[in-house]
C-alpha cells in the first residue's frame, strides 16, 4: 500500500460540509485536528468518556430529527462501546453519519495497537450489528465520496476511514471544555428554539 491517508486531510476535505450539522467528536487527535482546521460553535468535542461520542450523537439525532448529526469517532473509542453499534442500529436515526477514523492504535498514549491492527473489522462489525450502510475507505477521494453520499442520503451510515497513525504535537487546545459545552448548547438553542 502507498502513502496512508491522513486524518487531518479528511477533516479538511469536508470541513465546509459541516457548517449546518451538529458535530460530536472524540478526544485526542480528532478534537485537536478539527479545531486546527477550524472550530465552529456547532462542534462538540467529548474530551473523555471514550466510547460515548456515538451515544451522544444518537441522543441528539433522536431528539432533533430535523438536524443532521455527524460523529467523528475512533477505533479505540468505538471498541470501548461496541454495544453502542447495536443501539444505533436498533433506532437507526436517518439523520446520523458515523465516521470512524481507524488508525489501528491508541495514538495519544503512545501508539499501542488496537484490535483493528490484528484484523478486527469495524465496518463488518457495524454491518453485523444491523447498520447496512457501513463501508471502509482508504483514500481521500474515497472518503470524500462516501461522506458526501452519506450526507445526501437518508439513512444511518457508518464510514470507517483507515488513516495513518500520526497526529498533532499536542492535544490540549485553547478551547476550554466547558466553554465548548455551553457554546454548543447555545448554538442548538438558537437554531431550534428548544
Amino acid at each position, binding site marked *: 500500500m502507498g502513502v496512508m491517508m491522513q486524518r487531518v486531510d479528511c477533516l479538511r476535505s469536508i470541513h465546509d460540509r459541516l457548517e449546518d450539522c451538529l458535530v460530536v467528536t472524540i478526544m485526542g487527535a480528532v478534537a485537536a485536528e478539527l479545531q486546527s482546521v477550524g472550530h465552529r460553535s456547532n462542534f*462538540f468535542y467529548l474530551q473523555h*468518556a471514550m466510547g*460515548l461520542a456515538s451515544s451522544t450523537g444518537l*441522543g*441528539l439525532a433522536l*431528539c432533533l430529527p430535523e438536524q443532521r448529526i455527524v460523529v467523528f469517532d475512533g477505533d479505540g473509542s468505538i471498541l470501548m*462501546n461496541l*454495544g453502542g453499534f447495536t*443501539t444505533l442500529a436498533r433506532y437507526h436515526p436517518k439523520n446520523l453519519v458515523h465516521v470512524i477514523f481507524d488508525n489501528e492504535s491508541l495514538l495519544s498514549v503512545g501508539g499501542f495497537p488496537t484490535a483493528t491492527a490484528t484484523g478486527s473489522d469495524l465496518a463488518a462489525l457495524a454491518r453485523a450489528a444491523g447498520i447496512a450502510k457501513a463501508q471502509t475507505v482508504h483514500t481521500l477521494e474515497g472518503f470524500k465520496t462516501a461522506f458526501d453520499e452519506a450526507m445526501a442520503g437518508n439513512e444511518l451510515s457508518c464510514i470507517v476511514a483507515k488513516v495513518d497513525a500520526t497526529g498533532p504535537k499536542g492535544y490540549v487546545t485553547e478551547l476550554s471544555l466547558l466553554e465548548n459545552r455551553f457554546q454548543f448548547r447555545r448554538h442548538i438553542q438558537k437554531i431550534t428554539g428548544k
Partner: protein
Amino acid sequence: MPVSLPNSRIVYDALKKCGIGLVSALPETWLVHLIRMAEDDPEMILVRLAKEEEAVGISAGAHFAGTKSAMLMQNHGFLASINGIVSFGQLYRIPLLMVISYRGHFGERDPWQTQGGSATEPLLRALGISYAFLDDPSTVEKRIAAAQTLAASSLHPAAVLLTRDLMWEE
C-alpha cells in the same frame, strides 16, 4: 410478577409531570412496568440500551437538544456507568436524572445482587451525587420533581433510589 404496577405508574407519571421526554433503560425486574409504560407512550422517546453507560451519552445529547431525560437503571448499571458519569456528566456539567433500582439491600433474596447493594450508597456519596429514596408512594412525585430540579439547577447528576418497599409486592 410481584413488581408493583400502581407504584410504577406513580413513578412514571411523576417523570412525565416534570417534563421528561426521553428515557433510556436496560431492563431489570423492578423496571419492567416503567419500560412498558415508556414504550406505550407516544410522547416518550425510549432508548433500550446494550449497556447502561451509553445512557450518559444519550442523556447528554438530549440535554444539548433541549430535551429532559431520565436514566432507568439497576444499581449494577450505575456501577457500570461510573466512568461516563464522572468523565462526561460531571466533567461537562450535564444534568443527569438517574432512577436507580436499589437491589441487594434489606430483604434481597438473590445472592448475586447483594454486593452491589452494599456499594451503591457509598459510591453515590463518594461521587458527591445527591440522592433520595423512593419508598412511599405518597412522596414519589415530590422527590422525583426535587431531584430533577436539583439536576437542572446544579448541572450535575442527581439520583432517586427505587426501593423494595415501593417496587415489590408480596
